[in-house]
């Protein structure tokens, strides 16, 4: 995907090798971006491009979710609040100002502002509590939001709100949506990458590992958590606004959809929580599968059952996500090959040292932390 940014740090393989690996990642990311850029030129079937736009929107939302929940460990099941807020903001503003065509895309900035503004008080309340209580509070926010838009008149009650329908050429109708969604995904991924590399990202992950110890070491937990929450909400709000314009309508139970929360979380888990490429990979696999199931079984109830089964499968079979699992396999493979090569040549003492170095390389990897995993595994009960 975007260069497998979660791949393990290059093990001690000489500077040349390290350079090669370092060049690999941006090259991979660039190649992937080029593929995404030319995709609508290669595939013009509206069914395909519709799924593609949907996938990109969800990928952006999943990356945004991961910026907060993946890095900080605070699992939010209420990001649909920001998604829905973005959708309704664009809807209400477009109706009030009679915006049409490309102008509606500018309203995404307003959606970002509203979602961001909303996230500050919500974050201040929710981020005072941890773990399960946090999860449940975010769910409570979600239900409050859904009930509120159902009861207000400005949001159109239960019949919702309609988006302006642009009069673009039907043959390339989806293209503007596609490229705006792609831009959003690129922005979100860049933000995720920058945050992960920064001191701020380090503070977030320190909070995830042990908030009290992080606070003891001088991390001001609340501002750090809140900032990540707001950044995440801003991108989710834009994704919601774009989704609304693309779908053409927002009604309370779809703009504020519990399935949205579940999907985004499963995407991030599938690819690898707290990694950069993970949520994108998850969205690329799960969203088309979801759309395909819905198309295949127009009887939506069957698709719901299959979707639930797919989620269970992901959770049970790939609990750590594709990217961390693959990264670990690669590291283990390299370590084994290195030790085999060492066995042939230098004496045993060096082999042991090399093996130890290999292990150290694994443990020093910032994420995922296999030592932590093992520890948690031992502590975990039934």
């Amino acid at each position, binding site marked *: 995907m975007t260069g497998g940014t979660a791949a393990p740090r290059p093990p001690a393989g000489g500077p040349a090798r390290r350079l090669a690996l370092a060049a690999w990642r941006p090259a991979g990311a660039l190649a992937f971006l080029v593929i995404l850029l030319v995709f609508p030129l290669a595939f013009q079937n509206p069914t395909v491009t519709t799924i593609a736009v949907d996938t990109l929107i969800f990928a952006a939302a999943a990356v945004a979710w991961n910026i907060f929940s993946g890095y900080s460990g605070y699992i939010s099941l209420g990001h649909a609040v920001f998604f829905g807020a973005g959708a309704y903001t664009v809807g209400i503003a477009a109706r009030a100002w009679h915006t049409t065509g490309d102008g509606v895309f500018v309203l995404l900035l307003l959606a970002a502002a509203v979602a961001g503004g909303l996230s500050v008080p919500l974050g201040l309340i929710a981020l005072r509590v941890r773990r*399960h209580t946090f999860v449940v509070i975010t769910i409570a926010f979600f239900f409050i939001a859904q009930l509120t838009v159902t009861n207000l008149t400005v949001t159109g009650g239960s019949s919702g709100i309609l988006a302006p329908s642009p009069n673009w050429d039907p043959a390339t109708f989806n293209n503007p949506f596609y490229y705006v969604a792609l831009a959003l995904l690129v922005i979100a991924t860049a933000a995720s990458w920058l945050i992960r590399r920064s001191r701020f990202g380090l503070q977030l992950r320190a909070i995830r590992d042990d908030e009290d110890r992080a606070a003891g070491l001088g991390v001001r937990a609340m501002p750090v958590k809140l900032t990540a929450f707001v950044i995440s909400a801003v991108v989710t709000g834009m994704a919601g606004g774009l989704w609304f314009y693309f779908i053409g309508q927002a009604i309370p139970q779809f703009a504020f959809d519990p399935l949205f929360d579940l999907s985004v*979380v499963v995407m991030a888990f599938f690819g690898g929580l707290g990694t950069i490429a993970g949520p994108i990979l998850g969205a690329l696999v799960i969203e088309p599968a979801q759309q395909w199931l819905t198309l295949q079984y127009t009887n939506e109830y069957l698709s*719901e059952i299959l979707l639930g089964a797919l989620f269970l499968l992901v959770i049970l079979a790939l609990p750590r996500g594709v990217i961390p699992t693959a990264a670990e396999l690669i590291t283990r493979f390299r370590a084994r090959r290195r030790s085999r090569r060492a066995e042939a040549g230098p004496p045993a003492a060096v082999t042991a040292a090399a093996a130890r170095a290999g292990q150290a390389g694994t443990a020093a990897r910032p994420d995922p932390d296999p030592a932590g995993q093992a520890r*948690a595994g031992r502590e975990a009960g039934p």
Partner: protein
Amino acid sequence: MGRQIYEAIVDGILGGGIYALMAVGLTLIFGVLDIINIAQGILVVLGAYLSYVLSVHLHIDLFVGLLITVPVMFVIGVAIQWLFMRPLRGRERATMSLLAAYAVALIIEGILYRVFGPNFVVLKASYITSSVHLFGFYLSYIYLYGFALAVACVAALYLLLYRTRFGRSVRATMQDQTAARLIGIDVNRVAALTFGIGVAVTAIGGMMFGATSGGFNPNSGYDLISRLLAIIILGGLGSIGGALAAAVFMTTAESLVDIWSPDWAVVVFYAALVLVLVIRPSGLFGKRLARAQ
């Protein structure tokens, strides 16, 4: 007005008994397994549909039918825990189990939709429609019976937890799983049985919900789970007494607001939750939250 308020309070307390029963199951599961069983809402609906099938197709009385539905729901609960919760390991276990429960809820919801369709159904019985004149109010018999049953069940759960050997091992597991294991408690067995018991009460809750809610369909699970979550958080996660008090408090507050504005009555539920948490993050009766994760 005054009369309406009295009525609302009586309604709230009687309705609260039913929610209390469902919430106790949820908070018990949390206390022992550290899992928020988000499928509890749809399991209540499943319990309601089981009662519906028994009463419509086999003409079994709703209360007698519980003798069948309670064991069935118990087995379903044990199966869910054994198949989907027990295998989960690792640092994100708590979150994963929540997501697994979510996925299970989705599957059950889809199955219910396929079998029963989206139409609302109601449970019918003579004691649902007839009412008794008591202290100047007309009360439907079902509320009285249901409340009595809920109180009896909560009392039975209390006895089970505080007066039996099994209950002691459950409470030991709630306090410290590792220590419980060290003194020879089969934690896996306790976990499976607790999940089963927590789900078994949804059979009773479901029957009562189906009889008093004025109609339900497979989508009713969302509304239920959100209320139940609000109740157990407000009461303090893992606190059984807290769940009881919060259930009665919440339903009473809701039926009071319902006098003025039915549309916003449900919002009160969550607004109360947020308000309480701003003042007291661990809920009304919760222990201080564990500091280390």
